[in-house]
């Protein structure tokens, strides 16, 4: 989500996978030949457990998978969909790759930021929304496309965007 992903932030608190997450990890491990091979799905479990992946969460993943923490850092910062800082309840991901761009993604992104009063990679004061720009999310056929957490909303226009934001704002 960030243009530079050099730092894995500290949460300032120790992270230990809760039992239910550990159970999921055990199941994941049965599908891979080595523990290292399971790193990506286990990082997803970490992200789903804590909402974002802190330095301590990365260390917990390294511990569980017997990997050097530096290797986990390398993978975390290589991929863009692991959140390296806390994000809002709704992660608004607006695609600006070619198809969406040609269909007005830029104005959509701008409208989104203006309505929420935040810039790119910022989170609203109430912690509800984080706005990010993403590369192609494979919604070209119904561009412009955007995702909220892992749900697609497409094709979007100003009216649909307003309705979506209104609905999400009303939610607790």
């Amino acid at each position: 989500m960030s243009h530079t992903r050099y730092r894995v932030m500290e949460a300032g608190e120790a992270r230990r996978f809760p039992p239910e997450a550990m159970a999921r990890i055990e199941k994941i491990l049965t599908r891979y030949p080595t523990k290292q091979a399971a790193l990506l799905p286990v990082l997803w479990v970490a992200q789903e457990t804590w909402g974002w992946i802190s330095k301590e969460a990365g260390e917990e993943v390294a511990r569980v998978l017997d990997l050097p923490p530096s290797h986990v850092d390398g993978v975390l910062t290589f991929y863009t969909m692991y959140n390296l800082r806390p994000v809002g309840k709704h992660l608004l991901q607006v695609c600006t790759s070619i198809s969406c761009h040609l269909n007005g993604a830029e104005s959509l992104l701008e409208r989104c930021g203006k309505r929420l009063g935040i810039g790119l990679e910022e989170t609203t004061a109430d912690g509800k929304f984080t706005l990010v720009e993403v590369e192609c999310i494979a919604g070209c056929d119904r561009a412009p496309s955007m995702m909220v957490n892992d749900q697609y909303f497409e094709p979007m226009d100003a009216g649909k965007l307003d309705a979506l934001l209104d609905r999400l704002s009303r939610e607790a």
Partner: protein
Amino acid sequence: MSSTPVAPPPSAPPPAPPPKDTFTVSFDGKAIEVPKNLNLIDAAKLAGVDIPHFCYHPRLSVVGQCRMCLVEIEGMPKIQAACTVPLKDGLSVKTTTDKVKNARAATMEFLLINHPLDCPICDQAGECTLQDNSFGYGNQLSRFDEAKRQYPTFDRTMIGPHVVADMTRCIQCTRCIRFTHEIAGTSELTFLDRGGRTLVWTHEGQPLANDWSGCAADVCPVGALTTREFRFRSRVWYLQKTPSVCPGCNVGCNISIESRDDVVYRFLPRLNPTVNDYWLCDYGRFLSEPLNDRDVHKATVREGSAVREATVPAAVDRIAREIRSSLEGKGPGAVFFLGSAHLSNEENFLLRKIADHVGSPNRDAIVDKSRPRKVKSKTVWVEGDDAGANHQGAKDMGLSPGAGGHGLDAVIAGKASPEVILIADAAFSAIADDPEKVAALRRARFLAVAARNANALTRAADVVLPAASLAEKEGTFTNVQGRVQKFDRAFLPKPPIRAAWEHLLLLALALGFGDRSWTPHDLLRQIAAEVPDYAGIKEEELEGGRLLKKGDFAWAGRP
């Protein structure tokens, strides 16, 4: 009589030719036999063909990361990264075609898009692979006038106790990452981010702090990783390289002493696959710093309560006089000789000859134990725990108590009370800075030491001789494997400082034996003639060290 012709007995099949353990490979039309397990880049080197590269390292895994080693292979339509092409019989490699030249120049151009041209302030300049390859294979002019990528917060930053990172200079070859992963086994380094923003860094809270972290700076082909100790101290082309052996422990890593104007600036590992390969531990590497320390510049002699300066010959004469008077009064048992694990075989040998000459069985050489230090040779880890490089050699030269003689323990415990004690190296052990133990040695009527640095022992001694450092003398050490290794002199000691063997030779002459013309070379010849395990050893065979055929040396470590 049968007309049936008798079939000739079946002839034995011709013996199969012995399987070849080499491949015939040609480089630019020149055919050469090379071992099968070689990498193509090293095979080319055997043929005298230089294939430029950054990421390939003979002891690290092959990653084909840098794209500098591109060559044409007959039968393959596209240019190939030489390091990734397995050798096979009949392989024909072309390194001088236009296609190859253009590809190399293009790779250089890509690398220089972001690499700063700050060579005038970069410590790597002069030993930089990027500089060399740019000069040898790059374009003369740059077509690039855009701004370069920089990592302002990742420059001039310590990423470990010894290594400084300047990530703006990094060319992403991954040698350092592979070194920490594959050799050190500590995996501190990793790539962060990706694409044009990739950089090498550590996990926060886990700095590059393994025992060989300096090697990460060694394998770095550019100035992205340098050592804090050597940074900004000297341009590398001013440094004179002298082959030597690390004084840190009994592993005996082969080093290059890098000096200029009689100052040692750094140690670098010197390739010896059977001992330290390409590596050197940080402890040994940074002993280059204390090598320049010296407190003892002149010989001193105590007269009554006063200590005054003397010439070295006068001081040695005083020692000889004291030894002779003790011999006359009390016999040979009244003199005690102590060698050292820091002295060369030649020096310890000469000390033992002096003890033989006066007939004293009281001789010893001890060593302190340190925490185990190890280094990866080409095949196994070699481990040592002596706090001196040559205890094995000192023992081999005969520096242990003879029949009816006493060792250092007995002297310190008061079980033996020699009148005269000669200690050939005042830094032989921590004992020399332990006031109680020095007091025990001081019970002797006369105490003489050779020293570079002052300690409790030199302050207590009657005669102190100024002794040369490792860089100021030559000789041989015998390591934990029983390998006799030669070290050369980087520069002459400043008079009146002399190597311990010179002090000992003066003493031998004063006591009536030896030859003024003896050098360490002559002493090694005498060792070869007189010390059984060293029989026939020749100086010219000592390139890479010669393993003694004793077979009782402890090999530690894992395969």
